[in-house]
């Protein structure tokens, strides 16, 4: 028993001594917020949540001239907010379905760089004026048909005159989901209408009112959100989106 007691005491000493150091570095508490804004309309650029949407890239230049980038995702509506950043100097840019903030030519030379450098302490706001590849606007509200399918109308236009991004439209999809977080990574395949285009077929729909109806027969009697996404094969092939809307079940 005595032996056991001494062993236990020894352990206590060892354990207690390893507690002596105080980890006194303050947790990150600075806030960076902002948004990606369509420079022509002033609206934020809609995107999808998760890895397939707009993200913010931070380069902590106060730490190294060539730091490993730190990324965080934008919210679906094109705004972003991170409240757990260390106070430091950051070179900030955004990546998403719009003409890149940092552009390089085909030999790797940086041709333009609209990144913003900020000294973050407390909180800061950075807004980026961008040119989305495509702009998707609702024409009226989604309408329930007699057979309980839903028909929507949208108008898609290009958001940029940049010659390098006048590529053909490859997909125009109507996403249906029971949450507002509706997009290419979250939709109900039973009702969503996905259409791929080859050649200039999709491009010829630009500027026109496009009518899309859900598939799969009658919609279930529950809250349903609709969102239209379209893309060109540029960058990481991300989608541009309309805002999510819902209509009451008749």
């Amino acid at each position, binding site marked *: 028993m005595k032996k056991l007691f001494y062993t236990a005491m020894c352990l206590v000493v060892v354990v207690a001594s390893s507690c002596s150091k105080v980890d006194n570095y303050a947790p990150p508490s600075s806030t960076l917020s902002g948004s990606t804004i369509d420079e022509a309309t002033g609206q934020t650029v809609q995107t999808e949540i998760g*890895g*397939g949407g707009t993200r913010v890239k931070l380069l902590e230049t106060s730490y190294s001239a*060539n730091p*490993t*980038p730190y990324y965080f995702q934008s919210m679906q509506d094109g705004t972003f907010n991170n409240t757990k950043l260390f106070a430091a100097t950051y070179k900030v840019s955004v*990546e998403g379905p719009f003409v890149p903030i940092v552009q*390089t030519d*085909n*030999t*790797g*030379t940086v041709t333009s760089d609209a990144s913003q450098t900020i000294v973050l302490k407390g909180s800061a706001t950075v807004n980026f004026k961008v040119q989305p590849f495509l702009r998707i606007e609702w024409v009226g509200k989604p309408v329930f048909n007699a057979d309980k399918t839903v028909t929507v109308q949208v108008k898609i236009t290009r958001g940029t005159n940049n010659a390098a991004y006048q590529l053909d439209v490859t*997909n125009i*999809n109507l996403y249906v989901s029971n949450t507002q977080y509706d997009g*290419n*990574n979250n939709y109900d*395949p*039973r009702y*969503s209408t*996905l259409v*791929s285009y080859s050649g200039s077929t999709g491009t010829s729909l630009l500027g026109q009112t496009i009518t899309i109806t859900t*598939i*799969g*027969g009658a919609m279930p009697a529950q809250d349903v959100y609709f969102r239209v996404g379209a893309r060109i*094969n540029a960058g*990481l*092939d991300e989608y541009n989106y309309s805002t999510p809307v819902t209509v009451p079940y008749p």
Partner: protein
Amino acid sequence: MSNSNQQQIMKKYKYLILLVFLMAGIQACRKLNIPPKNIIQDQDVFTSNGGIQAYMARLYSELPIEDFRYSPQRGLNFFWIISPTPATTGEALSRDQTGSMQENLGGWNWNFWGGSYTIIHDCDYFIQTLPKYASTYSTAQVNAWLGEAYFIRGMTYFALVKRVGGVPIVNTVLNYTPGSDVTDLKVPRSSEQAVWDQVGSDFDFAIANLPAVNTDYSDGSRANKYVAAAFKSRAMLYAGSIAKYNTATLFDANKNQLCGIPASAAASYFQKAYDAAKILDGAYSLYLSAWSATDKTAQYQNFINMFFDAASKENIFVREYNYPNSVHGYDAYNVPRQLIGPNGYSSEVNPSLNFVEMFGGLPKNADGTLKTLDASGHYILYNNTMDLFANAEPRLRATVIFPGDAFKGQNIEIRRGIYTGSSAGGISPLLPAGSRSQYPLTNLVISSTSTQTAYKLPNGTLMNPAGLSGIFTGDQTCAISGFSVRKWLDPNLPTSQAKENNETQTWIEMRYAEVLLNRAEAELELGSAGTNGANAADAFTVINQIRSRAGATLLAGTGSLTIDTLRMERRKELAFENKTYWDLKRWRIFDKEQNGTIYKILMPFYSSDAGKFFFDARTDERNDTYTYDPRWYYEQIPQGAIQKSTNLIQNPGY
């Protein structure tokens, strides 16, 4: 034991311990100039054939090839294959793989980065050290072994570059002295093109130095010059495809192109692929041992036998297994449900209807889909489920088990349910065309598990609602697509032996059919690049050789051979051999094929009223949606690798 006794023993121990300490202390005064006896030294390894063989055994066992023990989810050399590769490409559906994926390179069970560079290090070490012991062996022998080391290093760079693009090229052994600066050890990524060229030059060295027959092992499990040439044709074809079809780019600060190859380089890579494939002319041949030009059953049997005949002249490079040291469990995971092994599993790979529709010999609609309805829109009725497949291409039958086909002496029974409604005037489709809903349960008897309650047919006989191999709606351990995989399944393996970690069937990584397909593809790509149009005729001949062996209808003329028909041929011939994943990737069509895609299945039903079978073609009942993210063409470099070597630049989008 008494107390005094204990004390005495304690005392004894004290002296003993003192003695040991004293002895150890005296010993420690000696200078340590004897090589440690428990560590194998270079001269132990490099001075005997046995030592070299042991070194080679390790290199070959680590060789990164996608064999029976590979899946994108769990990586290379892993025993548990329940998220099979074909279920990521659309070739098949699996209950455990429900969508597209990039490989899980950062997974705990796949040391992708460290593992690859360990192999490269071991090859570098071998290449640097063997010449010091060259006098022990003949020059030819030394060259052959060096050729093997270059081959394995080339294979490893190939495995790296096809996944992540440009990687660090490390062709000398890096040494670390404790306390020294490690900056030089953080080798940055080279351009993608430089790595493909490295792969090409390693294979060139191997081709030049390896003999036609490996003198240590002539069975294809170790490299000879033709093996190196065959892999060179594969690698250069990949490089050419990337130069031609890739659009993603990434540059480092010094303008090295880490991702992507200038399109202008495409033709030279295709030319290299063609030249390398031509080296094998006459050295290998398509397997035709049991084949007959007029007998479809013989063609079918021949295609099956090919995967089991060790003497096949089609086998170029194989991986052999040995119980219990190196084993796999392909049959355990993939046998049809009714032949389930003693430890469970079965039916992991269920070929999709999309895959089956690629083949000939089936009744088709004008749009190429399988014909299941008659002109009036009612189901076509069959006396037997095999009637639909009576004229199917023999290669398809050797690749896929149809509902009702024979395997291991049993009829593999696959049935979705019994339709009890009237058949008068024909049976209308159970669901509207294109519907993704569940089947309505009126007039339908189904089984949720393999424990079934038999249904009494109008004539009084009993019939189980589902077949012995499915489909069970509540238990996906069954042929969920209506088909079960046939390729690689051993027809002679007793069911009691269909266990994981128990099988030793040889994996054929490279066979001559692929070399022919490489050659034809390179020829077509060169033709369309306008430099070598005359080769279209040779490509046509080659493809017809493969189609003839398969029992397929031959192509009518060179005009009918387009790049699309050639790709289709490749996907059919090499299906379920873990090649399609890489082909879809290098052609950069993965994201086009898997773009909100739900694959199709074929559900056999029995009509109790008609006493006949009918088939319903529909989309996967589980509504598993496949969307391939274009970022995955350049996979994510494991975060841990970048933390260790901070000069590594991550691929775009991660």
